[in-house]
């Protein structure tokens, strides 16, 4: 069948190839990719290669509330109190922060897609139950509940990366589920699905092979924003002291510690982790926005 299609239709690029070409033609899309890739390279190389060991306290001979500002050899400066190397801290913290961001995106998208496909494909009572459930989750002031759950996990001796990811996923699936459901409802009525049904293709196969691949456009767009959102939330929750165990470096934990010394003028201690959070958020926004316009069928040439 595909041979006939290939033989008779004029050769054209697939929607995904087209989207990729449109993505690469912009300035913002590749720019965002370059920034994000640089952050990755810095985090991986930095956490492996930097000569200063984060966990070893360099035995300061004097207590200094104000650390040393950036200089040659220590381009990000040195913290107050323990006098740790800020560059090493930021690189090690970035590893945790990026893991949280990407794990949250993968988890939320998996659950959201599952709920959306089930609700949209099966319809009826299951659909309305799942959508009301999403309404309730959306109505809850999620920041409060996330903080509360993080506090509970902390009380249980946790404060781990995965319990935080779990909480983020629990409050990250609703919007995606609605999005996917809407897509599935529209695609379900299309002719090629009807054709597949008429051919006797089993429902599960229709859902997986015919509907899902056509419904993932909005998910691709949403993914970068979830990564950025999770990194920012982790930073904020850790800053409040409800997040990851303070002994583990994350961008949020570094800021949480350094914020106490802000008035002493340690701007580099809080500034560099802050800059990395902002750059990560900026790059994922750039990638996400470009993806959205690249995948928008109305703009296709």
């Amino acid at each position, binding site marked *: 069948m595909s041979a006939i299609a290939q033989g008779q239709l004029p050769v054209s690029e697939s929607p995904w190839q087209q989207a990729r070409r449109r993505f690469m033609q912009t300035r913002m899309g590749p720019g965002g990719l370059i920034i994000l890739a640089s952050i990755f390279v810095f985090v991986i190389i930095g956490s492996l290669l930097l000569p200063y060991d984060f966990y070893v306290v360099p035995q300061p001979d004097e207590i200094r509330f104000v650390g040393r500002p950036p200089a040659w050899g220590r381009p990000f400066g040195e913290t107050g109190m323990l006098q740790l190397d800020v560059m090493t801290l930021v690189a090690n913290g970035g590893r945790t922060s990026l893991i949280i961001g990407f794990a949250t995106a993968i988890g939320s998208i998996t659950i959201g897609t599952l709920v959306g496909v089930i609700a949209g494909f099966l319809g009826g009572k299951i659909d309305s139950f799942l959508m009301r459930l999403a309404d309730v989750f959306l109505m809850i002031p999620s920041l409060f509940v996330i903080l509360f759950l993080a506090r509970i996990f902390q009380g249980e001796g946790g404060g781990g990366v995965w319990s935080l990811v779990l909480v983020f996923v629990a409050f990250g699936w609703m919007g995606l589920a609605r999005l996917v459901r809407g897509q599935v409802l529209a695609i379900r009525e299309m002719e090629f699905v009807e054709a597949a049904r008429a051919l006797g293709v089993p429902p599960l196969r229709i859902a997986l092979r015919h509907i899902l691949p056509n419904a993932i456009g909005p998910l691709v767009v949403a993914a970068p924003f979830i990564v950025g959102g999770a990194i920012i939330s982790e930073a904020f929750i850790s800053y*409040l002291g409800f997040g990851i165990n303070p002994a583990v470096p994350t961008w949020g934990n570094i800021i949480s510690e350094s914020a106490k010394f802000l008035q002493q003028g340690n701007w580099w201690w809080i500034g560099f982790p802050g800059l990395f959070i902002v750059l990560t958020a900026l790059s994922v926004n750039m990638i996400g926005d470009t993806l959205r316009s690249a995948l928008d069928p109305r703009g296709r040439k």
Partner: protein
Amino acid sequence: MLKFALRRIGASLLILLGTTVFIYALLLAAPGGPEQKYANNPRFTPQQQQAYVKALGLDKPVPVQYCRWLGACRRDADGIEALIGPTGFPSILPAFISGVDTGIVHGDFGYSYENGNAVIDRISGALLPTLILAGLSAALWLSLAVVLGVITALRNGGLFDNTVSVFTYVIAAFPTFILGFALISIFSVALGLTPVSGMTDGRLSPAFGSDAYWVYFSQNPGVAISDLASHLILPVATLVTISVAGDARYVRQSVMESMGMEHVRTARSKGLSNLRINRRHILRTGLIPFATNIGLAFPFLVSGALITETIFSWPGIGRLTLIAIGNLDYPLLMGILSIGAAAVAIGNLISDLLYAVLDPRVRL
């Protein structure tokens, strides 16, 4: 229209009820309740712990506790009779009919575990600081977003538009707390222009909201107001900058979309003046989506200030929430969360109704 409104109100109430059930279950399912507070104290005997649990009503099954919190059950009865008040009417009806005055439907939010103060007093004490901060920010935010969005859309492609676009794009990537710290570093620490945090200067005035504060305020209002204003600058700047960055782009886009609509082309072909086209045809359609956004300012008023209040030690609802979470103070948390959820519901409702009033296509 009335039917549409009633249906939306009914749906909101149901979802609100579901939300409180969910939050209540979540709080009580969490391990480590308030009875754990003194667990490390060797003088705190198991008997005392049991008495404490009993006094707080935590020994009852969770559905009963929820029912009592809601006010559908009496506190002084058990089982099915609790649903009927002493006068023989269902407990959930207003107090003068049912004779029951406990539970939130009767306006009783319970007492804080932390210090035994009435939840409603603690919340109302924190409400004024939040309303001052968020109200001022919301007013500035909405007007700035409209002005910037409209100007950049009408002059699109110009230098001003490009500058504003790049600036808002970068600012929109800033998490609120990082922007707050950046502002503190620059304006308070480096330049020494503004106070670092708090609502009043402790060397000059009593704590905000105390009786002594209002005496002080009435004696020298000029000093008190300028002190308050100087403490407001940075938190308001933080909230407004963050929110405007997102919304100015939104306004710009919807005004641009309305510029391309057919009725605008018609107006132009009729030879109407540019000013008239802008005012009557572009802005009216272009600002509808944003007008509906005003309803979304309500949750912003209640919860969006949490981050800013924390950074600047502003004694409002956001900070109260963090205190309640830190102490696992369930009645206080339930009070704040249900009021917060109600604010979100009212905000959504207003925005839906506004949409229906402004855009008749929605009213189906």
